[in-house]
């Protein structure tokens, strides 16, 4: 009985030496080296790359990787109150079931025939988002809310031919950084102040900064700091009065209870799909949506793909395809709108599954339930001595700022202490919003029970007490 042969790689069928030899013969090459004839000798790597020794068996590989990952603590083991752009919502099992189906997971850019299901699923995703947003056009997802916001602003700039955007000061520092980098060559971003009492966008500040140079006003609802911007109407009116476009960034999971932004004047709405069925994945579960009315001047400014419905030769059969493909960079290179590439389609399909599972009643209930829980948390936390919560006098959705000035303890310390209670405390805002003092942004969702919130309150009491 013969012994082990030299390694053949399971992922590389033709690594079988005999097959390789035969194929080399077919192509008339002496050795594989010959095939790289166009690569100058000088550029050819002489030694083996200095990489770690591999784990060639799946068993050893898995043990290696899982061993490293076991150093993480998860939000199943710990009670998590972090949000700030990535939120712990419940992911229905059917969402994972669908996005792990090999067909969806490994498809890519096939034709509307062989990939009919992909097109239909993404068309349906857009259609359901359209209902949630009350808007007629929704893109195939882009990377994340950051990108969606930045692109929305550039769309507005192209539509208006203007080069200034007014952005609410309560937008996260990171998102603002992205917007600035992405808009830099074309568009200047100016910040609009907020009311220190309520957090609400300051209409005076807006009035002072808006002008005929303003391409768009961008604000979020609920805001990054958790409260609801109640003056959407007024803000959009100011924008419109100056010929500017009103862009609203929105957390889609709020839309069972909060008005869709189009109701208060939004022209472009954007946001993140992560709450709709994506695991947090250390920030790897994001996908950005952009939505507008079905007007040519808007549609033609999307850089993303847009999938539309079309008839086939067979009566009653639906086909799909790219709408106005000739606006994209695929078609026009640098003459296209911004650029388009592989982004987050699978999360779009997943968000569609999520919305289909939830239906109108589910979206209402989840929004209401989140509010009930976060209000309970605010109420309970506010009872702790030295703690001010919520820091803003405004209605809130799922996040809220907790101020610890009165406790004499830094957020950093508090959060470290909470860890020993197996709790992840809210995001430290001291660097991002120094004017808020010693504050943290807490997030409460439908995954939290009363007992969870009570546990937080007890732990906080102990920690700051």
């Amino acid at each position, binding site marked *: 009985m013969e012994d082990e042969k030299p390694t053949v790689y399971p992922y590389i069928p033709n690594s079988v030496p005999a097959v390789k030899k035969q194929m080399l013969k077919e192509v008339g090459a002496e050795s594989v080296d010959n095939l790289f004839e166009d690569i100058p000798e000088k550029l050819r790597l002489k030694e083996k790359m200095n990489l770690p020794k591999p784990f060639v068996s799946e068993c050893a590989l898995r043990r*290696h990787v899982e061993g490293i990952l*076991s*150093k993480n603590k998860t939000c199943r083991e710990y009670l998590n109150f972090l949000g700030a752009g990535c939120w712990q919502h419940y992911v229905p099992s059917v969402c994972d079931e669908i996005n792990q189906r090999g067909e969806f997971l490994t*498809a890519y850019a096939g034709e509307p025939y062989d990939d009919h299901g992909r097109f239909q699923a993404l068309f349906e995703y857009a259609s359901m988002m359209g209902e949630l947003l009350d808007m007629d056009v929704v893109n195939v997802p882009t*990377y994340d809310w950051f990108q969606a916001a930045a692109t929305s602003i550039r769309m507005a700039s192209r539509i208006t031919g203007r080069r200034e955007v007014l952005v609410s000061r309560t937008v996260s520092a990171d998102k603002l950084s992205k917007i600035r980098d992405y808009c830099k060559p074309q568009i200047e971003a100016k910040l609009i102040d907020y009311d220190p009492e309520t957090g609400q966008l300051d209409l005076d500040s807006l009035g002072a900064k808006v002008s005929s140079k303003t391409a768009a006003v961008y604000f979020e609802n609920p805001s990054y700091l958790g409260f609801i911007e109640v003056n959407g109407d007024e803000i959009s009116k100011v924008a419109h009065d100056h010929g500017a476009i009103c862009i609203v960034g929105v957390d889609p999971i709020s*839309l069972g209870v909060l008005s869709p932004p189009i109701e208060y004047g939004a022209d472009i709405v954007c946001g993140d799909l992560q709450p709709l069925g994506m695991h947090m994945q250390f920030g790897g579960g994001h996908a950005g949506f952009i939505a507008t009315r079905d007007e040519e001047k808007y549609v033609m400014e999307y850089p993303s793909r847009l999938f*539309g419905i*079309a008839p086939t030769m067979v009566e009653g059969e639906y086909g799909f395809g790219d709408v106005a493909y000739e606006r994209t960079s695929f078609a026009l290179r640098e003459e296209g709108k911004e650029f388009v590439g592989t982004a987050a389609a699978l999360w779009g399909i997943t968000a569609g599954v999520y919305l289909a599972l939830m239906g109108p009643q589910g979206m209402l209930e989840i929004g209401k339930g989140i509010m009930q829980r976060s209000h309970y948390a605010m109420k309970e936390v506010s009872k702790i001595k030295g703690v001010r919560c919520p820091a803003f006098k405004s209605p809130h959705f799922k996040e809220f700022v907790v101020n610890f000035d009165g406790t004499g303890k830094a957020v950093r310390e508090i959060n470290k202490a909470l860890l020993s209670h197996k709790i992840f405390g809210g995001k430290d805002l001291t660097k991002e919003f120094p004017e808020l003092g010693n504050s943290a942004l807490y997030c409460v969702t439908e*995954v939290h029970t009363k007992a969870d919130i009570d546990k937080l309150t007890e732990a906080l009491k102990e920690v700051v007490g």
Partner: protein
Amino acid sequence: MKDITEERYVDGKPKLRRFHQARWDEPIIFELSNEGERGILVPEVEEELKGSVGDVLSRIPGKMLRKKRPELPELSQPRVLRHYVRLSQETLGTDLNIDVGQGTCTMKYSPKVNEQIARMPQVAEIHPLQDEETVQGILEIMYKFEQILKEISGMDRFSLQPGGGSAAIYANASIIRAYHESRGEADQRDEIITTIFSHPSNAACARTAGFKVITLYPNEDGYPDIQALSAAVSERTAGLMITNPEDTGIFNPKIEEFVDIVHEAGGLCAYDQANANGILGITRARDAGFDLCQFNLHKTFSAPHGCGGPAAGAIGVADELGKFLPVPVIEFDGSKYRLNYDRPESIGKIRSFYGVVPVVLKAYAWVMSLGAEGLKEVAETAVLNNNYVLKKLLEVPGVSAPYAKGKRRIEQVRYSWEKLAVDTGVHSEEIGLRAADFGVHYWTSHHPWIVPEPCTIEPTESYSKSELDEYVQIIRNVSDEAYKNPELVKTAPHNSTIHRIDHAPLDDPSQWAVTWRAYRKKVKRDKAGE
């Protein structure tokens, strides 16, 4: 009964399979709605808690409270599942087909073990803002993967933040801008040079980042034209952004000279390495003098394409550009991993948090299953497969491989069906639709359409000789049909989920419909007058 024996051609091995794609004729999900059905119930709120907070909705000011419920479909859970499982069967993933027909996309095998690991709670259920002590595992993987990419590319620093290849290219354009800004030359240096067979995102991202774009065309031999480059560079040159091997599969043998010329003119050079699959362990970006590069982890590094993402791009830069990388960067002090935001010259954020972490994890696991020798085996086998298919396909009537005649190709080949179109009137796109009848992809997106009747095949390392033979046999058969019975090809697909689409409405603003609600308003109502 239809005689399907005809469909199995016997003129050669392997015989063609008698394929039919699943056809479920599934309605649009809204059409399935039954009022009152629920797909899932949301967690109940404890009565005590409810009592404590009272009517929370009343706190939402009137105009901010949603009045009309969203008209989402109402479906039971099994019906939602059935709908999507059926749609999935109507989608042709790499797990299903000999996926060599989407050339430049590197449709390789995405190992299931990596997918399973990426779905563990230790990856899925961690929040990016957790205390660093509680995420040392994932930070370690990201850090180690950066070290791997450094070795593969020769670059000095990496960021894994971009959400895809194009986002990575954009980030590189942004770094080039920051570099010239830091030297006070931003206004002057506003031109990026690329080649027409570099992926369109190079041109598009450069423009989006505010640059003018100069595009070089191939010379007579089909190689990027070095004379044209010399003519293009100037004190306005900000940089070169270039794919190599180009989307044609041709490696630019003068790549080092290109880099030198641009450097001499004061520009930076960014290497789009999305096509790196064929050169892993063979040649490295930094060794050719590049200052920046990018990899697509969802292509070369085996993460699945997910119908178009989640994707991930990795950007690598030379030491002197390290300070411009997006924040945060991951650092290791010998015992702990940490995220460093304190980088004043950074271009800032490219996306939320730190990158598309599950994709990075899959890429890491893939490399760790292969090692240095395995990666080289990937490249060598992919290139051998490509040249094998080239040899076989060129025996098929009507097809040619323009440019660099007689030369080897690296990762893929852009073919032309010009002769077939002239001979038979059948176009490349139609060949693709007929190929679909045999259960394989063949994509038609080959911008720029400079090669007439283009078709790009990229076998990668993931398919056996017998599967490559099957693919070639399908194409040969379609070519035969085009010569003998062009109508059959021109009316394809015949065995697909659906039939020929009328694409006209998709470019007509009065008819296009990107959502069901738009369709109902614009098309259905119009038609049925309902």
